[in-house]
């Protein structure tokens, strides 16, 4: 040790040059400072952390790094590409009821849900229509089951998508304004005395202001409030969402305003009650007994509901969640009284503030609280006694009105917003069978009821629906390969996807200024229905009117777009008549077009290849436009060209069927359709011929006008 010390002391110089020493030291300092200030490191941040601070999760979770280093670490991580997507939560987690509500809020910007949506979505095929997501048909129940529900039990539908408009003001002002919208020849209007006192609900077809000859807007139902002095009355009008905007425009132009809360100085106020009321429809013989299960025992035994058509009853019921049955029970008939519960006092449902208060009460007493209380009861499944927070809920029960010759008893229940699910479950548990849009259509077809849920063929909404349907059917048709497509040109079907009523009226009557309309004048219609046919004046016959008819076939059934034709003078009843196969002049053209198109595609592909080998791009030899043009041309060659409906076929066509199927209520094939009024006098013995689209057999059928 002393040796080393001696060695070290031996080499130490005795004197040093200050300048040289400091310059070398300065260089050292500069080099060190440079190195500190410009770190050149090949290691990542997390590799330079001391061992005891490193964590496994910091490779994907930057929050595990010390705060000061977090940003730098994130920047380094971002350099290696975007982060992996967070794992999607598992299906069970996604479907929890609380999350479903969030889902709704996200999705509801485009389509709105009914309040009972979640119940329906689990059991029905849903469809998007008119800005709503609506149940179309049941997943489990078949068409026949739903028909039987209407015929023998009780069918239940949520029709809260109907839009309600409230008009308040002096009675005379309102009636005067609205009278320009309805044609008094089609039946009672808004000002009819029988509806003015608010005991019945009425239905009326509305037109564009003072234009009764062009098509209608649609069928609406209306209800006056049964109290109020003539200076301040309230009217509710329920319209279908398909023509709601059009209806609002007409109301605006009548009552002259331009904002959501419309106000006219004399005091007619229009409010849009869009989300504030719910409406359920029950149809069937047991409808009234299902509804009376909502009442408490005293009301049920004391007075039973009458079936007087259109009659309105206002009742106050308990919260249905308190008295919900434990299991579903089958509906049974109860004695239906003839006495009409006279509800002279105004239902609280008309009062907007009370309605809002009741809606808020729904959220203040949630389901799980009530379920807890029910589970604490001594006897499980009994009704909960009246709770301190409960207030009675006002509802309106509107009986079904006579719409056609078949009367199907039933009622509509109108409730405040927020309570739909509670009442829906109560009605289902009491024996109602749920139905969707398809069942509404089937009720319209079988019995002619629920017309306010269906659109008129001569209204704008009806025409738009027909165009949509045409597009869908055409897409389906052209999706099939050419060999399996029905050749409508050869099989002489002029309108396989959509009926052109204008063409029909032009062929029979000639050009006219207004398009076709359906005859709705009650006097004329009843005149046509009578056995001894009255002779119609020539002025009437030259108008482009269509008359609604029903055709009944003995064997087989008519379909949508079936043709109704006049039998010839010599045709024997029930003889077999066939339409001869027509020539298809377009077949050659189609074949030629196909060959031309395939050669064009090949040449374009060749040119693209040459160009690509030279240039590297495809240039402008893309075949997209050629394909589009060819598609259009071929499609037009497959569809039958327009022809004279009176002369082009073996028997002249007088009308078409709009709904045709096997009618379960009658047990034979039925078609509901329209014919031109001019042809009525030429029908011998109420017998016509019906030919289905894509077939050439004429079936003999009986025709009746409703």
């Amino acid at each position: 040790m002393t040796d080393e010390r001696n060695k070290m002391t031996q080499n130490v110089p005795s004197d040093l040059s200050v300048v040289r020493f400091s310059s070398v030291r300065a260089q050292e300092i500069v080099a060190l400072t440079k190195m500190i200030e410009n770190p050149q490191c090949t290691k990542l941040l997390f590799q330079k952390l001391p061992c005891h601070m490193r964590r496994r999760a910091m490779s994907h979770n930057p929050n595990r790094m010390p705060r000061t280093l977090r940003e730098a670490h994130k920047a380094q991580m971002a350099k290696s590409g975007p982060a992996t997507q967070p794992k999607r939560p598992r299906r069970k987690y996604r479907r929890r009821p609380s999350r479903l509500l969030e889902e709704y809020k996200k999705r509801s910007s485009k389509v709105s849900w009914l309040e009972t949506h979640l119940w329906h979505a689990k059991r029905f095929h849903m469809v998007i229509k008119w800005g709503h997501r609506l149940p179309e048909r049941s997943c489990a129940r078949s068409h026949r089951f739903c028909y039987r529900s209407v015929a023998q039990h009780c069918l239940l539908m949520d029709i809260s998508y109907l839009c309600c408009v409230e008009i308040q003001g002096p009675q005379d002002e309102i009636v005067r304004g609205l009278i320009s919208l309805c044609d008094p020849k089609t039946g009672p209007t808004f000002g009819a005395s029988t509806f003015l006192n608010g005991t019945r609900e009425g239905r009326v077809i509305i037109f564009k202001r003072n234009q009764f000859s062009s098509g209608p807007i649609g069928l609406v139902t209306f209800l006056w409030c049964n109290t109020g002095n003539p200076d301040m009355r309230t009217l509710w009008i329920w319209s279908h969402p398909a023509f709601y905007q059009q209806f609002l425009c007409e109301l605006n132009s009548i009552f002259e305003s331009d904002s959501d809360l419309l106000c006219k100085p004399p005091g007619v106020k229009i409010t849009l009650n869009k989300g504030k009321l719910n409406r359920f429809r029950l149809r069937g013989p047991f409808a009234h007994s299902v509804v009376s299960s909502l009442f408490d025992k005293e009301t049920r035994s004391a007075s039973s509901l009458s079936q007087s058509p259109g009659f309105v009853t206002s009742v106050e019921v308990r919260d249905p969640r308190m008295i919900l049955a434990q299991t579903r029970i089958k509906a049974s008939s109860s004695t239906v009284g003839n006495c009409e519960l006279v509800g002279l006092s105004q239902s609280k449902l008309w009062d907007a503030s009370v309605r809002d208060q009741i809606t808020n009460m729904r959220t203040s007493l949630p389901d799980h609280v009530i379920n807890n209380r029910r589970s604490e009861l001594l006897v499980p499944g009994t009704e909960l006694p009246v709770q301190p927070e409960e207030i009675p809920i006002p509802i309106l029960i509107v009986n079904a009105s006579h719409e056609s010759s078949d009367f199907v008893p039933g009622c509509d229940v109108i409730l405040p917003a927020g309570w739909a699910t509670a009442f829906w479950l109560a009605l289902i548990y009491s024996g109602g069978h749920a139905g969707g849009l398809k069942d509404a259509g089937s009720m319209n077809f079988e019995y002619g009821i629920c017309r306010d849920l269906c659109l008129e063929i001569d209204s704008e909404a009806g025409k738009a629906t027909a165009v949509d349907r045409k597009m869908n059917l055409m897409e389906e048709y052209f999706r099939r390969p050419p060999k399996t497509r029905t050749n409508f040109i050869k099989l002489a079907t002029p309108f396989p996807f959509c009926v052109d009523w204008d063409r029909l009226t032009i062929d029979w009557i000639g050009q006219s200024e207004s398009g076709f309309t359906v005859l709705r004048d009650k006097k004329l219609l009843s005149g046509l229905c009578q056995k001894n046919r009255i002779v119609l004046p020539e002025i009437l016959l030259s108008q482009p009117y269509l008359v609604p008819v029903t055709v009944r076939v003995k064997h087989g059934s008519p379909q949508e777009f079936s043709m109704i034709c006049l039998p010839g003078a010599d045709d024997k009843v029930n003889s077999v008549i066939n339409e001869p196969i027509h020539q298809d002049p377009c077949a050659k053209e189609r074949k030629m077009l196909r060959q031309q198109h395939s050669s064009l595609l090949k040449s374009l592909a060749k040119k693209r290849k040459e160009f690509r080998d030279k240039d590297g791009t495809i240039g402008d030899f893309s075949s997209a436009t050629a394909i589009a043009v060819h598609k259009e041309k071929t499609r037009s060659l497959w569809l039958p060209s327009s022809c004279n409906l009176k002369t082009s076929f073996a028997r002249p066509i007088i009308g078409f069927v709009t709904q045709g199927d096997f009618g379960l209520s009658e047990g034979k094939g039925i078609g509901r359709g329209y014919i031109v009024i001019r042809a009525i006098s030429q029908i011998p013995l109420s017998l016509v011929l019906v030919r289905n689209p894509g077939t050439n057999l004429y079936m003999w059928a009986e025709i009746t006008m409703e």
Partner: protein
Amino acid sequence: MSEGTNDSATGVRQEQVPNSKKIRYDPEEYKLRKRLPARLPSRSNDVYVNNKTDFKAQLARCFNCLETESSVHIHGLGAAAPKAINLALQLQLKSNTPLEISVNTSTVHLIDDFEPQYDSGDFYSKERQNSAVIIKVYKLLNMDMNEK
């Protein structure tokens, strides 16, 4: 025009007319709508007869009931009463086992609604009566008293 008393309990006008002068309604002003009769509970051996369904089908249905049950109750209202009677008699003729018939007649209250066709009219209902027949057709149960 005779007086019609308004029965305030039922809200239904009951007309008391002399036979010579019956009040007709103006078909232009009103449309007559018949309401369905009250729906009675039907057990499996109740058969309601109507004029629209084929006779053979209804006969077959009665035979079906008789196979499982010991009796069939055939109900017929108004114009379907003769058809119901015919059905019961045919049943007795064509069946293999001897059948006994017991007939009861009754009156059913029906309501007609008058629907106004124009603004001026008002809804009202009239009650009327119709005759109904219930025919009970039952198998004879042979009780052999001498069996030991």
